[in-house]
């Protein structure tokens, strides 16, 4: 486990950049710059319509905790902020890092890290060594969240 994530710390243009060489077979590598991940994980922009469907799909878990601008969705959580306006509050880069690993913003957060496989305990067989969401799904959700502007 310890060697599955090799952080390489660089000082680039005055900002702290951490490149995570995540396990090549499960996670694509990404670079944290400041408080975000500026580059798309897939190298392409995501699809906001697919992202909306993912956010509303319970298996993505978002609406277990969050509510949002979804007037027709019956069961929404109140453990976390309403997602309305997140596209104004956060940049795409910040939203991407939040989804990849929310504990970078708040180490005590209850929000899962959706694109991380290390540091987890007693993961069920069906989910072991897999991120909760794929790189494509993260990009689709980032694209959708960016449209939620006040």
């Amino acid at each position, binding site marked *: 486990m310890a060697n599955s994530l090799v952080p390489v710390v660089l000082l680039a243009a005055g900002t702290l950049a951490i490149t995570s060489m995540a396990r090549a077979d499960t996670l694509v590598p990404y670079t944290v710059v*400041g*408080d975000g991940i500026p580059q798309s994980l897939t190298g392409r922009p995501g699809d906001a319509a697919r992202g909306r469907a993912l956010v509303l799909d*319970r298996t993505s*878990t978002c*609406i*277990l*905790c969050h509510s949002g601008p979804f007037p027709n969705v*019956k*069961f*929404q*959580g*109140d*453990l976390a902020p309403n997602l309305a306006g997140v596209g104004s509050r*956060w*940049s795409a880069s*910040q939203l991407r890092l939040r989804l990849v690993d929310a*504990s*970078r*913003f*708040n*180490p*005590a957060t*209850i929000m*899962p*890290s959706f694109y991380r496989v290390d540091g*987890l*305990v*007693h*993961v*069920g*067989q*069906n*989910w072991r060594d*897999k991120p*909760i969401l794929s790189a494509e799904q993260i990009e689709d959700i980032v694209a959708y969240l960016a449209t939620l502007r006040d």
Partner: protein
Amino acid sequence: MKRACAMLVAALLVAAAPLRAAEIPPDQRRSGYSFMGPDSKAMQDDDTANPGMLWVLDGEALWNKRPGAANNACADCHGDARASMKGVAARYPAFDKALGRPVDLEQRINLCRAQHQQAPALDYESHDLLALSAFIANQSRGMPITPDGDSQLAPFIARGHELFMQRQGQLNLACANCHDDNWDKRLAGAAITQGQPTGYPMYRLEWQTLGSLQRRLRGCMTGIRAQAYNYGAPELVELELYLMSRAAGMPIETPAVRP
């Protein structure tokens, strides 16, 4: 932007992720019952409407049956359960001297079947084990949970507490994240509640059947995408033990009804 940067700096400075995990003060403890709507409450309160009472009645019949080679019934040794089993479920899991570890009520019943009736063990969630445990626990209905005082239980309770506080599973959540820190909130519209073990075995409307506390705990583990411990595993008994010590003084409700 500034706020996020400040949070990121804080994230980098704080090495270990602390849990909020304030334990619930005794005067704020609430059974899952108090979070239910009037229909579910009424169903639990009225024995003729409470589906769990069917298991209690079956348990009473089993109490008097002679299933094993020893040809004796629970009643032959324990007499009238209304007297002999009063308060027993309120102090389980209890320390078993011969085994040197805690056993829950289901395991205790199976020990009597094996040692005293020469009958095969009943599986968790089998109709007969649910019926016998519901019948026995029903004899403690209304009585306060009074954990077994055996000092040898201390390390097992401590381990249960650790398991309760341990983040686990793909979603990386601890029992305490929901049941200590967020019991006043809703998960996808459903009340989270404090996870109190007061009503077991209980009739869950979603299951359409009675279920044990271990079934409920396994369900929560699967919910956070952790590997659920096998029925009867020491870790599940330790969790049961911790939950009962956390609920000391709360009244037993068996058979409870839950959504």
